[in-house]
């Protein structure tokens, strides 16, 4: 009796969910795509940010920094999302502990924004450890970034795999290579 009740409940919830999705999502049959890319980022607190847009899976030119073409930006270890103080977009981010492959549903609320230039959504140091012995930046394991993209209508999940120095001569590196993996859902759904 109890089991049957549960079954009905699950069925009802599933129906509600599918119904909701049908209403909201644009019916485009493009599957979510996953990629691993490397972004070259300035090792400097003053040089330009490197901006990235999930939709085109590409670096966004600095001339487009005031558009909603990019979702997040990086400079040294400063992490921007395209919102409020950082840009005209509606991008938000949630940094969550977990295993990338197992987290297949992006939250629909609770996103953080760059409210001011000193109160960024991603706090410095929250996603990496700096090893002063090897002078390396090691991204923390088990950190998944959920994004609502700059257009406010799509979801992506991302994890950092490695941060290396680009080959350099001299006392300090000039560029960092951020290797990251992401899944972008072009159909607007929050499930990947």
């Amino acid at each position: 009796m109890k089991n049957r009740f549960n079954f009905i409940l699950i069925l009802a919830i599933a129906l509600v969910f599918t119904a909701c999705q049908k209403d909201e999502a644009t019916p485009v049959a493009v599957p979510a795509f996953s990629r691993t890319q490397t972004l070259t980022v300035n090792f400097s607190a003053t040089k330009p940010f490197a901006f990235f847009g999930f939709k085109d899976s590409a670096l966004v030119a600095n001339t487009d920094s005031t558009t909603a073409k990019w979702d997040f930006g990086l400079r040294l270890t400063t992490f921007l999302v395209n919102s409020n103080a950082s840009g005209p977009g509606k991008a938000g981010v949630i940094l969550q502990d977990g295993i990338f492959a197992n987290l297949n549903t992006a939250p629909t609320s609770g996103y953080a924004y760059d409210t001011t230039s000193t109160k960024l959504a991603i706090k410095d140091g929250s996603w990496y450890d700096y090893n002063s012995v090897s002078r390396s930046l090691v991204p923390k394991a088990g950190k998944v970034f959920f994004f609502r993209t700059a257009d406010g209508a799509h979801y992506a999940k991302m994890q950092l795999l490695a941060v290396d120095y680009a080959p350099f001569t001299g006392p300090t590196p000039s560029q960092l290579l951020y290797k990251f993996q992401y899944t972008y859902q072009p159909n607007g759904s929050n499930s990947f």
Partner: protein
Amino acid sequence: MKFCIVKQMKKTHYFFSIVLALFQLQAIAQQRVFKDTLDGSSETVVVTANRSERKMGNVAVPVILIGKKTISQTGSLRIQDILQEQTGIVIVNSALGTSLNGYPNPFGQGVQMLGLDPAYTAILLDGEPLVGRNAGILKLGRLATGNIKQVEIVKGPSSSLYGSEAMAGVINILTDMPAKENIGFQLHHATNNTWGGTLSYANRIHKTGIQFFLNRLSTDGYDLDPTIYGKTVDPYRDWNGQLKITQELSNKLQLLVSLRNYDAKQDNNYQIFYQNLPAIASGYTTETDRSAFAQFKWLLSSNSKLYVRGFYDRYTNESFVNLDKTGLRFDETSFDQSVFKPEIQYEKNRPGKSQYVAGFGSNIEMIDASRYAGKQNLATVYGFTQKEWYLLSQKLTLIAGARIDKRTDFDLHLSPRLAMAYKPNAHWKFTASAGWGFKAPDFRHMYLNFYNAQIGYSLLGSATLGQELGKLQQQGLLQAGADISPYTNATGLKPETSFGMHLGAKYTSGKLVAEWGLFRNNISNLIDVYALPFTRTNSLPIYSYRNVGNVFTQGAEMDLSYQLTKQIRLSGGYQFLLAKDKQVLENIDNDLLYKRDPITLQSSLLTRQDYVGLANRSKHSLNAKVLYEEPTAGFDAYFRAVYRGAFGFMDKNGNNIIDNESELTPGYWMLNLAASKTIGSHLRVQIGAENLLDYTNPVQLSNIPGRTYFINLNLNIHQPTKHKLP
């Protein structure tokens, strides 16, 4: 001079025979120490375990003893080489800076005992603490080995007698006391153009005893990575001198004065980047360590003694480099630390029933260093007491003791200790001990004000944090909008504390001595570095210190010694060690920790099996020794093999935890051999080789040179009877 002494002798001739008898007793005690230490002979006298003389066989806490003979049989001039051949003693690099880009680790090496960092072992010279620790490590190279009479190592929390720093234990290096007339010369030559010369002189003229020691050591250093400009260890020269004088002021009062001077100079020569261009910088580092010690020993009665002593030690370190091309000063640091320590100690002995020791004193420390915020002082007053009872026809020894320490900046701290030894028969001895230890936050934790110009981060001591943050903010060097208010009135650091237990058993039967031990230490309030939630304007972090960690270390140890033949003795030891952070274990159980696969770069949950433990700790360490002695032929050979098992080096997979094979430094063997032959009655020639396997690890263990060879020539002239009086 001679007349004067004769006069005194006449005055006190009645008591003289007693005093002489005392001296002879002492001399016998010393002779016995020289005679044998490794087999744990019950006649050997140790002082560190109870802060007063005890026979080794009666001591209830684990003690390792290294005698003069063993030191001379190894031929080593470095005390750390001798220490690392002992079971459970590992010489480790500072966790802070394991060799940067092929330069030597600026923080040096120290002693890891019971799995605790070097900062938690008190290093004493003749019972008094040495100052001048850099990042918690006291450079042991400061101490010459030529005048060491005996090294006593007490394992386990010993704060009940020695206060702060004695959390893991105590290493007490005892130097020669004035003895019968003896003149000694030693010439040492080794690989890397290393030269050493030693002169020693001892004499006892009537009521005055004198012991003089002078040593010079120089080396060209070595280079483990020729592709990097500069040597791994730059050339240096050290001077070490000590003068000890004892004077019988009356039959009941003895004065001991000891003066020590260490003076070292080492080249600095490396490549830096100046205005983004490579440039050579060179200069040198000078170090001095000067101490003075005076003690009155007053025999109140046949069974009670009073010591009044004062100790002063000052350590300085000045370092600079100039740019070779322009002569411009590129970097300069200075460090000046001193301690003054007056103390009174009372001892009461009821033969066969009990022994009592108590004392009080104070520690007044001063520091003035370029990396510290201004000149700082710290004062501690302390008192200690310990009683030892002998029960059940002396089969059972019970010890209870405690010490209180009050430093100006934190509350009264109590450190008790309980210990017992049970000897049911001539073969077995069982011991159990439990003690509390503590380590006060040191100058660096409180007053460090360090900005790394090359990388750009800051490290600030907790006591200066508020003030320095205010300054940084005023200068516009803090991230805009940083809220420093929680740090401006931060409460100070608390002492780190520990509780340790040790269970031991020892079996002695003719040729065999076997010893087993089990230990466990819980350490709370560990002071650790943390990053503030805001950064400097360059986006790089600001670090400070806080009490966060709770760790434990536990393990088992075993020692065996077997006299195979009259000439050959075999010995060996093994330590099994686990050292883990309790918070990490809790986080693993709560599924809060992840690891990243080094190949796929994917994250997964960390398990308890993955967690290796704290960095720098080897699970397994062992040593094996073969000693061949032919006393009639004046020949001995001593072979030692020391293995240090794999240990965590640093995190690479994103969890700040050692949990992957790639984060470990593989284990290694050090094989050392020395042989000596006495020629005639005065000369002894010794040759040897250290690190026979030529093991090197330029990045992680830059302190280990490759294989080295040495030769020692010893000339000893005794005149044992010349001044002996009736």
